[in-house]
C-alpha cells in the first residue's frame, strides 16, 4: 500500500515538475480560457439585459473547454516520448499510474481555474469568490479530471486524437456541467449550499462512480 502511494506521489511530482519547467499545458489552457472569456463577453454583450446572468454558463463552458485542451496534452507528451512505457514498467498495479496522472491533471485544471475566476469577476462584474462556490468548482473539476484522464489515455492511441477527446468526453461529463451551472446559479442568487443538496449529491456520485470505473478499466486502456 505504501509503495502504491509512493508511486502515485512520484508520478504526480514528476508531472508537476515537468509542467513547471515547460509550462506547456498551463499556458495553453490559460490563454485559451482568457480568449474564450473575451469571445463570450462579446457574444452576450448586447443581447443580455444583465451580463451577470450568463456567468454560470460562461464559467463552466470556459472551464470545460480549457480542461479538454489540457487533458489532451497530458498524455500526448508521454505517448510521443514513449515514456508511458516507462510508467508501465513500475512494479505496482497500473491504476497507480492512473491516479498519479489524474491528480496531476486535477491540479493543472484547478490552477487554471484560479486564473479564470478573477478574470470573470473582472469582465462580468460579479462576485464569484466564495467558499461554497469554490467547493462546487472543485468537485466539478474532479469529475472532469477523473473521466478526462482515462479518455485522454484512450484517445492518445487513436487517429485524430485531438478531435476525438472532446467528442468522447463532453456527452459523458454533461451532468457535471449541468450540476455545476445549476449550483452556480443558486449560489449567485444567494441560496445556501444546503438548499442545493441534491445537486451536490449528484456531483459526488458522478465523481465516485466514474473514479471506480476508471480504476477498473485503466489497465485495459494501457496494455498492449
Amino acid at each position, binding site marked *: 500500500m505504501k509503495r502504491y502511494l509512493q*508511486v502515485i506521489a512520484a508520478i504526480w511530482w514528476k508531472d508537476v515538475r515537468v509542467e513547471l519547467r515547460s509550462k506547456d499545458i498551463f499556458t495553453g489552457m490559460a490563454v485559451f480560457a482568457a480568449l474564450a472569456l473575451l469571445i463570450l463577453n462579446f457574444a452576450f454583450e448586447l443581447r443580455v439585459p444583465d451580463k451577470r446572468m450568463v456567468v454560470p454558463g460562461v464559467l463552466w463552458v470556459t472551464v470545460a473547454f480549457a480542461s479538454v485542451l489540457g487533458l489532451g496534452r497530458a498524455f500526448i507528451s508521454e505517448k510521443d516520448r514513449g515514456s508511458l512505457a516507462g510508467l508501465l514498467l513500475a512494479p505496482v498495479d497500473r491504476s497507480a499510474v492512473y491516479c498519479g496522472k489524474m491528480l496531476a491533471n486535477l491540479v493543472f485544471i484547478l490552477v487554471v481555474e484560479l486564473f479564470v475566476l478573477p478574470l470573470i469577476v473582472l469582465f462580468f462584474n460579479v462576485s464569484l469568490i466564495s467558499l461554497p462556490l469554490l467547493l462546487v468548482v472543485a468537485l466539478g473539476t474532479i469529475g472532469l479530471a477523473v473521466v478526462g484522464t482515462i479518455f485522454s489515455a484512450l484517445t492518445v492511441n487513436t487517429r485524430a486524437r485531438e478531435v476525438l477527446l472532446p467528442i468522447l468526453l463532453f456527452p459523458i461529463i454533461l451532468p457535471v456541467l449541468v450540476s455545476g451551472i445549476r449550483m452556480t446559479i443558486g449560489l449567485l442568487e444567494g441560496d445556501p449550499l444546503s438548499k442545493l443538496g441534491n445537486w451536490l449529491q449528484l456531483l459526488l456520485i458522478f465523481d465516485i462512480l466514474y473514479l471506480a470505473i476508471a480504476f477498473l478499466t485503466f489497465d485495459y486502456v494501457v496494455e498492449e
Partner: protein
Amino acid sequence: MALIEIEGLEKAFGRHRVLRGVHLAIEAGSSLVLFGPNGAGKTTLLRILATLSRPSAGSVRVAGVEIRANPEGIRRYLGLVAHMPLLYDDLSAWENLRFYARLYGVERPEARIQELLERVGLWPRRKELVRTFSRGMVQRLAIARALVHNPPILLLDEPDTGLDPQAAEMMTTLLREVGGNARTVLMTTHHLERGLALADRVLILAGGRIVFDAEATAVSYSDLRPLYDRYVAGGV
C-alpha cells in the same frame, strides 16, 4: 530450471501474426543476442517479456512464475532499454533517475543514482536537462535508468541504433561491464559484430520463429554472415 522459459509464444495483431511459436529457455547469468529482420518480432518479444504486451498464446515463465499470474512482481526483476529512451527532456539526468528510483522503490536512492551516473560517465552532467544531451548520452542514461533497481534481467532493444561508432563502442564497453555479475542479458541488434562480441549465445528470429540458436563460441562471423543475410534479406 532455466530463469526464463518461453513456450509456444504467439502474438498476433489482428490478422497479422508476428510471433508464431517461439520456444526459448534462458539460463540465469547468460548473455543472448537476438538478430532478425525488421518486423520479425524482436521488439514484440521483448515487450512481452517486459509485461508491456500480452501474448496471444503460449506461456512465459520467469523463475518458474507465469508472467501473467504476477506481472507486478516480475517487473521488479526486469530492466528494459527500449527504442525510446523513456526519459523526460525537461528533467535533469539526476531527476530522471530519482523518478525511476521512486517508481521502483529503490532503497537509499541517492547513493545508487550517484553510483550509476558515475558508471555511465554522466555524473558531471547530472544537473543538466536531458534535452541538452546527445543521442549517445541519452542512451547511456537510459541504461542507467534500466539498472536503477539492479534487476537480474536486462532487456535491450537495439540499444546501438542511431549511435555513431565511437558512442557505440563506449556503450558496448559499458554493456560488457554491466552484463557481468551474473546478470541475464537479452539484447537485440542489427550489428552482427557487436552482438557477437557481447553475447555467449546467438539467436536469429525470422518469420516469427527462432531459426538459429547456437553458442557464440561455436560460430564465427564468417559462418554467421551468410545466414544472417539470408534471413534478413529474405525477410521471411
